């Protein structure tokens, strides 16, 4: 829990602020307006404490951010040469079938995440939350454990689990349904997205479950009890009492889930490694894989920035719609 060792020399530089803080007036009368608050004007101390964050953010967030605006209007060949091309990057993008394929795949993945993954997470959370379930934290640990494994490692592992005839998944499907032993999940364009979604379920069902479980535990038990006494069935208690009182977490989880889905990159890249992360016929191409390909494999950082802006816009729009919708729901 040690802070960065470089802070060892800070006390000397901080000393003047410490002594000025001891004076009753402090630096200026600007805190007078907040007479109700405790006297907390400590001169330079807060500025010093925030300096590392501010300096690093200026250098590695603000500068690249403004550069990203400019860069989207340039064509570059590697980081060194650039030519101004106006809106040509965006024109190229909106004429490129690969871009639409990526957008389609990513959207399908986002929809699958919201409508498959989240209900499963919620279901498991409800199962685990019921008071008789002993070993609650034990099973929570098990179901959460795939999240400790990086997406790249998950992708590598599942690329072998999906092996035709011998893979664990193919064999399990054969054992359960007498189907799927020879299915080529990762080289059959029709099965690439299902494979990706299945893998993502394995990883993230437990992740969202942790959030739902925490929310369920903070739901007011007396409300549920009152509804039960009034004769509501288990299902209608859940639907009319429990779910509405955890709506904040549901909105939060849905938004993070969609945002995460639109940034999907590492999982397909590793899972579909033998086809450059694209899948056959671009069947597993996502927006960020497309960005990666254009910006860093082909070397056009300008086009990469343009794609980045499109992704940002999509994510921003969806979050705004979602937040607006949840406000309307609350009224």
């Amino acid at each position, binding site marked *: *829990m040690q*802070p*960065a060792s470089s802070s060892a020399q800070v*006390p000397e530089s*901080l000393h003047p*602020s410490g002594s000025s*803080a001891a004076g009753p007036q402090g630096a200026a009368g*600007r805190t007078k307006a907040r007479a109700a608050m405790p006297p*907390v*004007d400590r001169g330079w*101390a*807060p500025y010093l*404490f*925030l300096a590392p964050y*501010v300096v*690093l*953010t200026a250098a*590695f*967030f603000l*500068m*690249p951010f403004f550069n*990203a605006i400019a*860069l989207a209007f340039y064509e570059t060949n590697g*980081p060194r040469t650039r030519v101004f091309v106006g809106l040509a990057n965006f024109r190229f993008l909106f004429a490129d079938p690969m871009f639409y394929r990526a957008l389609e795949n990513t959207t399908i993945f986002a929809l699958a995440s919201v409508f498959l993954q989240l209900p499963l997470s919620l279901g*498991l959370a409800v*199962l685990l939350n019921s008071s008789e379930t002993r070993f609650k*934290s034990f*099973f929570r640990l*098990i179901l*959460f*454990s795939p999240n*400790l*494994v*990086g*997406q*790249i490692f998950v992708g*590598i592992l599942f690329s*072998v689990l999906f092996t035709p005839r011998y893979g*664990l998944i193919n064999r399990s499907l054969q*054992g*359960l349904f007498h189907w799927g032993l020879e299915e080529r999940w990762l080289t059959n364009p029709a099965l690439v997205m299902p494979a990706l979604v299945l893998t993502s379920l394995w990883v993230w069902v437990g992740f969202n479950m*942790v*959030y739902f479980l*925490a*929310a369920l535990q*903070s739901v007011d038990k007396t409300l549920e009890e009152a509804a039960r006494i009034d004769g509501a069935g288990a299902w209608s208690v859940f639907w009319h009492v429990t779910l509405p009182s955890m709506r*904040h977490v549901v909105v939060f989880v849905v938004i993070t889930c969609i945002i995460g889905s639109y*940034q999907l*990159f590492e999982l397909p890249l*590793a899972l579909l*490694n*033998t086809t450059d992360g694209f899948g056959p016929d671009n069947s597993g191409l996502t927006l960020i894989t497309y960005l990666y390909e254009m910006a*860093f494999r082909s070397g056009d950082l300008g086009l*990469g*920035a343009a794609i*980045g*802006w499109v*992704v*940002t816009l999509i994510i*921003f729009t969806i979050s705004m719609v979602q937040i607006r919708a949840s406000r309307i729901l609350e009224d």
Partner: protein
Amino acid sequence: MDVVHWLLLALFAPLPILLLRSGSAAAVRYARWVAIGLASVVVLAPFVWLLAAVFKDRSVFNEYVFFPPLAQWSSKTMNLGNFVELLRGKPSVDGPVYFWQYVLNSTVYATVSTVAQLGVSSLGGYALAKYEFRGKAALMAFMLGSMMIPSVLLLAPLYKLVVDARMVDTLPGIIIPWIATAYGVFLFRQACVSVPNEMLDAGRIDGCSELGIYYRLVMPLVRPMAAAFCLIAFLQHWNSFFAPNVFLHSQRNFTLPIVLTMYVNDYHDTNYGVYLTGTALAMIPPAVLFLALQREFISGLTSGAVKG
């Protein structure tokens, strides 16, 4: 019918019996246990499969789904061949590179990033929580806004920046740009707000400097939060792929995720076991850290979400 079907049948068979004998509550409880158990089996199966794959010889890799039956265990079916191949020095432009080099790179990268992030975030979060100063509201608004920007947007210009700063293909080049995160500062702000002001004032009266208060009073109090944050940060960097893959060029600087994706291509047709072994080894440090910090982690993860 297969063994699997009989097993499933056996699992569900007690259901009607319970329903008749002990009533629906007992049946529901049993069904719940079966559902949770099955979900856990699905989640754990790949891990068990991986553990078997690591030790299975190439010649029997596909013969047994998991481990071979105990009677078949010998050095021909179960051995350390995958480790030997994995740890062998691989030729590169600048001499042979050993697997431990990547482990070392990943460890240094993840550890230094985590410690630096912890320092910057906790200092900033403490300042935001416990001081009034000019520009505070503006800074908070900026931080909230900056969290809406996906990191990929900045990657192309960041790459240019790192190249211009001559930090490309070095560890500092993948560490420094990601030390300051609005999210980290916010997490610590939330944790520091609940530290009582009286305690800080008592520290001041006793002659503690402002930095001393942060280090001696605040940090010990937000320790659970700090532990959760460390785990999240470490996981993020240990598993990070995009930036290191773009920013690092020479073989001996690579981190584990990069090199293992390369091995997938190298060994795909000959021996899965080699990169599966590497993957299994790469899973160990996060798992150990997680088990050590488990309790803090779950509460820290959900603290921001479950407040409204």
